């Protein structure tokens, strides 16, 4: 039985050959185990017992097989949700943030390049004020309307025509 001791030592060292391990298993399955080896017998028996335990099989009822359709629907809903989130991000995320930064800002005012947006805004406000002033001071709509009305006055036109006709008749006489 020295041989068994050697095999047992090799076994615990992880150096036992497959055939040696098989011999050990067979040895501990028998009832002729020596007293000094009895301590290891339950361990090999436990391995054998665990080997016999068959993992339970679950049978899915037919009516539960629509799980796959549910999964497909869930996949579809997930894809739609992701698409909606991406759309929202694209709509509201300031992707052109860099374009509006002061470094990239460039407008031409009267042929002059202006890079500072505040200066450009100030210049634009000034131009609008000047334009408004010009319009307000130079354009007098009531005066021009009165002039047109006076010029296009029907009674005056008829009077002028009557006067012209009288003048022509007096010349003929």
């Amino acid at each position, binding site marked *: 039985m020295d041989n068994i001791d050697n095999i047992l030592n090799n076994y615990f*060292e992880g150096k036992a050959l497959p055939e040696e391990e098989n011999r050990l298993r067979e040895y501990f399955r028998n009832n002729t185990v020596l007293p000094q080896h009895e301590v290891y017998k339950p361990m090999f028996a436990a391995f054998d017992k*665990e080997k016999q335990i068959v993992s339970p099989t679950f049978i899915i009822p037919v009516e539960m097989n629509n799980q796959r359709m549910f999964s497909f629907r869930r996949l579809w809903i997930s894809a739609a949700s992701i698409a909606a989130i991406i759309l929202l991000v694209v709509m509201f995320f300031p992707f052109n943030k860099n374009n509006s930064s002061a470094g990239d800002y460039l407008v031409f005012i009267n042929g002059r390049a202006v890079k500072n947006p505040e200066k450009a805004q100030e210049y634009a406000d000034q131009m609008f004020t000047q334009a408004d002033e010009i319009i307000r001071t130079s354009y007098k709509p009531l005066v021009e309307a009165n002039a047109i009305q006076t010029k296009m006055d029907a009674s005056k036109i008829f009077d002028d025509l009557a006067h012209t006709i009288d003048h022509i008749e007096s010349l003929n006489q």
Partner: protein
Amino acid sequence: MPRVFLCYNRMIDLLPEMQRTIIRMKDVEEMEITEIAGMMSITENAVAVNLSRARKKLREMILTHQQKENMLYG
């Protein structure tokens, strides 16, 4: 299930995960070292080292358990 098997299963459960898996594959499933190495994507030497450590720890646990039982029950 008899109490003795539960006891040894509990001892195996106390091993680190890698050692526990390897000792179950080797001693319960009776797989070859090469097969285990392939399945776990580790070298055969790593399998052998982990197997040796697992078996030695298991032996220590068995002997300690045996000593305690002897002390308690004579």
